[in-house]
Protein backbone atom coordinates (compact mmCIF):
# COMPACT_ATOMS: atom_id res chain seq x y z
CA UNK A 1 0.00 0.00 0.00
CA UNK A 2 1.54 3.41 0.67
CA UNK A 3 5.29 3.47 0.63
CA UNK A 4 7.24 6.66 0.09
CA UNK A 5 10.77 7.93 0.43
CA UNK A 6 10.76 11.70 0.98
CA UNK A 7 13.96 13.64 0.43
CA UNK A 8 15.00 16.91 1.99
CA UNK A 9 18.31 18.67 1.62
CA UNK A 10 20.58 19.43 4.59
CA UNK A 11 22.06 22.52 2.87
CA UNK A 12 23.36 25.02 3.76
CA UNK A 13 24.86 23.38 6.87
CA UNK A 14 25.71 20.17 5.06
CA UNK A 15 25.75 20.96 1.35
CA UNK A 16 26.28 17.34 0.38
CA UNK A 17 23.81 16.03 2.94
CA UNK A 18 20.21 14.85 2.65
CA UNK A 19 17.53 13.33 4.82
CA UNK A 20 15.64 10.35 3.37
CA UNK A 21 12.43 9.88 5.29
CA UNK A 22 10.82 6.49 4.76
CA UNK A 23 7.08 6.13 5.21
CA UNK A 24 5.53 2.67 5.15
CA UNK A 25 6.68 -0.90 5.58
CA UNK A 26 10.32 -1.65 4.85
CA UNK A 27 10.00 -5.20 3.56
CA UNK A 28 10.60 -7.02 0.27
CA UNK A 29 8.09 -4.66 -1.36
CA UNK A 30 9.54 -1.42 0.02
CA UNK A 31 13.27 -2.21 0.25
CA UNK A 32 14.04 -1.94 -3.49
CA UNK A 33 12.63 1.57 -3.50
CA UNK A 34 14.86 2.62 -0.63
CA UNK A 35 17.80 1.04 -2.41
CA UNK A 36 17.02 3.02 -5.57
CA UNK A 37 16.74 6.23 -3.60
CA UNK A 38 20.15 5.69 -2.01
CA UNK A 39 21.74 4.82 -5.36
CA UNK A 40 20.46 8.09 -6.88
CA UNK A 41 21.66 10.11 -3.88
CA UNK A 42 25.16 8.73 -4.02
CA UNK A 43 25.17 9.10 -7.81
CA UNK A 44 24.18 12.75 -7.44
CA UNK A 45 27.05 13.41 -5.02
CA UNK A 46 25.31 13.16 -1.66
CA UNK A 47 27.83 12.01 0.95
CA UNK A 48 25.86 12.33 4.17
CA UNK A 49 22.53 10.53 4.33
CA UNK A 50 20.31 10.66 7.38
CA UNK A 51 17.89 7.77 7.00
CA UNK A 52 14.81 8.62 9.00
CA UNK A 53 12.83 5.48 9.85
CA UNK A 54 10.40 7.25 12.20
CA UNK A 55 7.55 6.55 9.77
CA UNK A 56 8.36 2.86 9.36
CA UNK A 57 5.81 0.49 10.91
CA UNK A 58 7.35 -2.79 9.95
CA UNK A 59 11.00 -3.56 9.31
CA UNK A 60 12.18 -7.04 8.42
CA UNK A 61 15.40 -8.62 7.23
CA UNK A 62 14.93 -7.49 3.64
CA UNK A 63 14.53 -3.93 4.90
CA UNK A 64 17.60 -4.33 7.11
CA UNK A 65 19.45 -5.51 4.02
CA UNK A 66 18.61 -2.24 2.28
CA UNK A 67 19.85 -0.25 5.30
CA UNK A 68 23.10 -2.21 5.44
CA UNK A 69 23.43 -1.77 1.69
CA UNK A 70 23.04 1.99 2.10
CA UNK A 71 25.76 2.04 4.75
CA UNK A 72 28.13 0.09 2.55
CA UNK A 73 27.44 2.20 -0.52
CA UNK A 74 28.05 5.43 1.35
CA UNK A 75 31.25 4.16 2.94
CA UNK A 76 32.55 3.06 -0.44
CA UNK A 77 32.14 6.66 -1.56
CA UNK A 78 33.68 8.09 1.63
CA UNK A 79 30.25 9.11 2.74
CA UNK A 80 28.37 8.54 5.94
CA UNK A 81 24.99 7.10 6.97
CA UNK A 82 23.11 8.06 10.11
CA UNK A 83 19.95 6.26 11.05
CA UNK A 84 17.02 7.75 12.97
CA UNK A 85 14.86 5.12 14.60
CA UNK A 86 12.95 6.23 17.70
CA UNK A 87 10.36 3.43 17.69
CA UNK A 88 11.38 0.65 20.11
CA UNK A 89 9.67 -2.07 18.09
CA UNK A 90 11.67 -1.18 14.98
CA UNK A 91 14.91 -0.69 16.95
CA UNK A 92 14.38 -4.18 18.27
CA UNK A 93 14.84 -5.67 14.81
CA UNK A 94 18.28 -4.04 14.53
CA UNK A 95 19.11 -5.30 18.00
CA UNK A 96 18.02 -8.89 17.43
CA UNK A 97 20.38 -8.98 14.45
CA UNK A 98 23.17 -7.22 16.40
CA UNK A 99 23.14 -4.47 13.82
CA UNK A 100 22.87 -1.80 16.48
CA UNK A 101 26.56 -2.49 17.01
CA UNK A 102 27.39 -1.48 13.45
CA UNK A 103 24.89 1.34 13.12
CA UNK A 104 24.12 3.96 15.74
CA UNK A 105 20.39 4.54 16.05
CA UNK A 106 19.32 8.08 16.87
CA UNK A 107 16.03 9.38 18.19
CA UNK A 108 15.66 12.28 15.78
CA UNK A 109 17.41 14.04 12.94
CA UNK A 110 18.98 16.73 15.14
CA UNK A 111 20.52 14.16 17.45
CA UNK A 112 21.76 12.21 14.44
CA UNK A 113 23.63 15.31 13.26
CA UNK A 114 25.15 16.13 16.64
CA UNK A 115 28.91 16.25 16.55
CA UNK A 116 29.02 16.53 12.77
CA UNK A 117 31.16 19.41 11.61
CA UNK A 118 29.07 22.00 9.83
CA UNK A 119 30.72 22.57 6.48
Amino acid at each position, binding site marked *: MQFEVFRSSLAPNFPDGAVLRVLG*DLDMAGAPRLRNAVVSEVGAGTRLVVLDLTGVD*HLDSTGL*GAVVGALRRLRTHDGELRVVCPEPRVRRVFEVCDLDRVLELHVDVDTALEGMTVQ
Partner: protein
Amino acid sequence: MNPSRPADRPVEAVELFIPPLPEYLQLVRAVVGATVGVGREDELPLDPGGIADLRLVVSEAVTNAIEAQWSIGANDRILVRCRPDQKQTVVEVVDRGPGFDPDLVPDLPPVEDEERLDHESGLGLSLMKRLADGTVVETGPGGTIIRLVVEYP
Protein backbone atom coordinates in the same frame (compact mmCIF):
# COMPACT_ATOMS: atom_id res chain seq x y z
CA MET B 1 -34.89 -20.35 10.01
CA ASN B 2 -31.92 -19.43 12.14
CA PRO B 3 -29.97 -22.58 12.75
CA SER B 4 -27.74 -22.34 15.72
CA ARG B 5 -24.04 -22.47 16.21
CA PRO B 6 -22.65 -25.98 16.30
CA ALA B 7 -21.36 -27.30 19.58
CA ASP B 8 -17.80 -26.38 20.40
CA ARG B 9 -15.12 -28.06 18.43
CA PRO B 10 -11.39 -27.65 18.19
CA VAL B 11 -10.01 -24.42 16.82
CA GLU B 12 -9.62 -24.66 13.11
CA ALA B 13 -7.13 -22.96 10.90
CA VAL B 14 -7.47 -19.93 8.69
CA GLU B 15 -5.80 -20.45 5.34
CA LEU B 16 -4.67 -17.62 3.12
CA PHE B 17 -3.39 -18.24 -0.40
CA ILE B 18 -1.49 -15.37 -1.98
CA PRO B 19 0.22 -14.86 -5.33
CA PRO B 20 4.01 -15.04 -4.86
CA LEU B 21 4.47 -11.27 -4.92
CA PRO B 22 5.94 -8.97 -2.26
CA GLU B 23 2.99 -6.60 -2.37
CA TYR B 24 0.98 -9.26 -0.53
CA LEU B 25 3.34 -9.36 2.47
CA GLN B 26 1.52 -6.56 4.23
CA LEU B 27 -1.77 -8.40 3.81
CA VAL B 28 -0.24 -11.57 5.26
CA ARG B 29 0.99 -9.67 8.29
CA ALA B 30 -2.41 -8.10 8.77
CA VAL B 31 -4.16 -11.46 8.58
CA VAL B 32 -1.74 -13.17 10.95
CA GLY B 33 -1.98 -10.29 13.41
CA ALA B 34 -5.78 -10.29 13.28
CA THR B 35 -6.13 -14.06 13.60
CA VAL B 36 -4.57 -13.98 17.05
CA GLY B 37 -7.53 -11.95 18.27
CA VAL B 38 -10.30 -13.97 16.61
CA GLY B 39 -13.02 -15.01 19.00
CA ARG B 40 -11.41 -13.35 22.01
CA GLU B 41 -13.69 -10.91 23.70
CA ASP B 42 -11.25 -9.88 26.39
CA GLU B 43 -7.58 -9.11 25.99
CA LEU B 44 -5.40 -10.56 23.29
CA PRO B 45 -3.21 -13.51 24.27
CA LEU B 46 -0.13 -11.65 23.00
CA ASP B 47 0.92 -8.10 23.82
CA PRO B 48 1.72 -5.70 20.96
CA GLY B 49 5.39 -6.71 21.09
CA GLY B 50 4.48 -10.39 20.81
CA ILE B 51 2.19 -9.69 17.87
CA ALA B 52 4.94 -7.64 16.20
CA ASP B 53 7.33 -10.58 16.60
CA LEU B 54 4.78 -12.99 15.15
CA ARG B 55 4.15 -10.70 12.18
CA LEU B 56 7.89 -10.37 11.68
CA VAL B 57 8.74 -14.08 11.64
CA VAL B 58 5.85 -14.83 9.29
CA SER B 59 6.95 -12.01 7.03
CA GLU B 60 10.43 -13.56 6.90
CA ALA B 61 9.08 -16.99 6.04
CA VAL B 62 6.82 -15.66 3.28
CA THR B 63 9.65 -13.54 1.86
CA ASN B 64 11.76 -16.68 1.58
CA ALA B 65 8.87 -18.56 0.02
CA ILE B 66 8.42 -15.87 -2.63
CA GLU B 67 12.15 -15.83 -3.41
CA ALA B 68 12.21 -19.62 -3.58
CA GLN B 69 9.36 -19.69 -6.09
CA TRP B 70 10.85 -16.90 -8.16
CA SER B 71 14.10 -18.88 -8.38
CA ILE B 72 12.34 -21.59 -10.37
CA GLY B 73 9.59 -19.46 -11.91
CA ALA B 74 6.83 -21.19 -9.94
CA ASN B 75 3.65 -19.14 -10.09
CA ASP B 76 1.77 -21.24 -7.54
CA ARG B 77 0.10 -19.42 -4.74
CA ILE B 78 1.81 -19.52 -1.37
CA LEU B 79 -0.24 -20.84 1.53
CA VAL B 80 -0.18 -19.23 4.96
CA ARG B 81 -2.04 -21.33 7.49
CA CYS B 82 -2.73 -19.81 10.94
CA ARG B 83 -3.92 -21.89 13.80
CA PRO B 84 -4.57 -19.75 16.87
CA ASP B 85 -4.85 -22.06 19.82
CA GLN B 86 -5.52 -21.65 23.52
CA LYS B 87 -1.84 -21.69 24.40
CA GLN B 88 -0.02 -20.78 21.21
CA THR B 89 -0.33 -19.70 17.63
CA VAL B 90 1.06 -21.92 14.89
CA VAL B 91 1.67 -20.46 11.45
CA GLU B 92 2.72 -22.60 8.51
CA VAL B 93 4.07 -21.18 5.28
CA VAL B 94 3.97 -23.57 2.36
CA ASP B 95 5.74 -22.92 -0.94
CA ARG B 96 6.45 -24.83 -4.15
CA GLY B 97 10.03 -23.67 -4.42
CA PRO B 98 13.04 -25.95 -4.91
CA GLY B 99 13.59 -26.70 -1.24
CA PHE B 100 16.94 -26.26 0.53
CA ASP B 101 19.20 -27.72 3.15
CA PRO B 102 18.72 -25.76 6.37
CA ASP B 103 21.96 -27.20 7.79
CA LEU B 104 23.90 -25.44 5.06
CA VAL B 105 22.49 -22.05 5.99
CA PRO B 106 25.08 -20.36 8.22
CA ASP B 107 23.99 -18.65 11.41
CA LEU B 108 24.68 -14.92 11.57
CA PRO B 109 28.28 -14.09 10.72
CA PRO B 110 29.90 -12.16 13.57
CA VAL B 111 28.73 -8.62 13.22
CA GLU B 112 32.08 -6.91 13.72
CA ASP B 113 33.34 -8.65 10.62
CA GLU B 114 33.82 -6.05 7.94
CA GLU B 115 32.50 -8.57 5.42
CA ARG B 116 29.17 -8.58 7.22
CA LEU B 117 28.35 -5.49 5.24
CA ASP B 118 28.86 -7.41 2.02
CA HIS B 119 25.80 -9.46 2.81
CA GLU B 120 22.52 -7.73 2.47
CA SER B 121 20.67 -10.94 3.09
CA GLY B 122 20.87 -14.04 5.23
CA LEU B 123 19.12 -12.77 8.35
CA GLY B 124 15.68 -14.25 7.85
CA LEU B 125 16.16 -17.72 9.29
CA SER B 126 18.16 -16.37 12.25
CA LEU B 127 15.38 -13.94 13.03
CA MET B 128 12.80 -16.73 12.93
CA LYS B 129 14.89 -18.93 15.20
CA ARG B 130 15.49 -16.12 17.65
CA LEU B 131 11.99 -14.70 17.81
CA ALA B 132 9.73 -17.75 17.41
CA ASP B 133 9.41 -20.35 20.16
CA GLY B 134 9.68 -23.04 17.53
CA THR B 135 10.82 -23.10 13.91
CA VAL B 136 10.40 -26.38 12.07
CA VAL B 137 11.48 -26.76 8.46
CA GLU B 138 10.13 -29.54 6.25
CA THR B 139 11.69 -29.27 2.85
CA GLY B 140 12.25 -31.27 -0.29
CA PRO B 141 12.41 -30.87 -4.04
CA GLY B 142 8.64 -30.26 -4.16
CA GLY B 143 8.73 -27.30 -1.82
CA THR B 144 9.09 -26.18 1.75
CA ILE B 145 6.89 -25.89 4.81
CA ILE B 146 8.09 -23.59 7.58
CA ARG B 147 6.17 -24.08 10.80
CA LEU B 148 6.46 -21.22 13.28
CA VAL B 149 5.21 -21.59 16.83
CA VAL B 150 4.67 -18.60 19.08
CA GLU B 151 3.63 -19.49 22.62
CA TYR B 152 1.47 -17.24 24.73
CA PRO B 153 3.10 -15.95 27.91
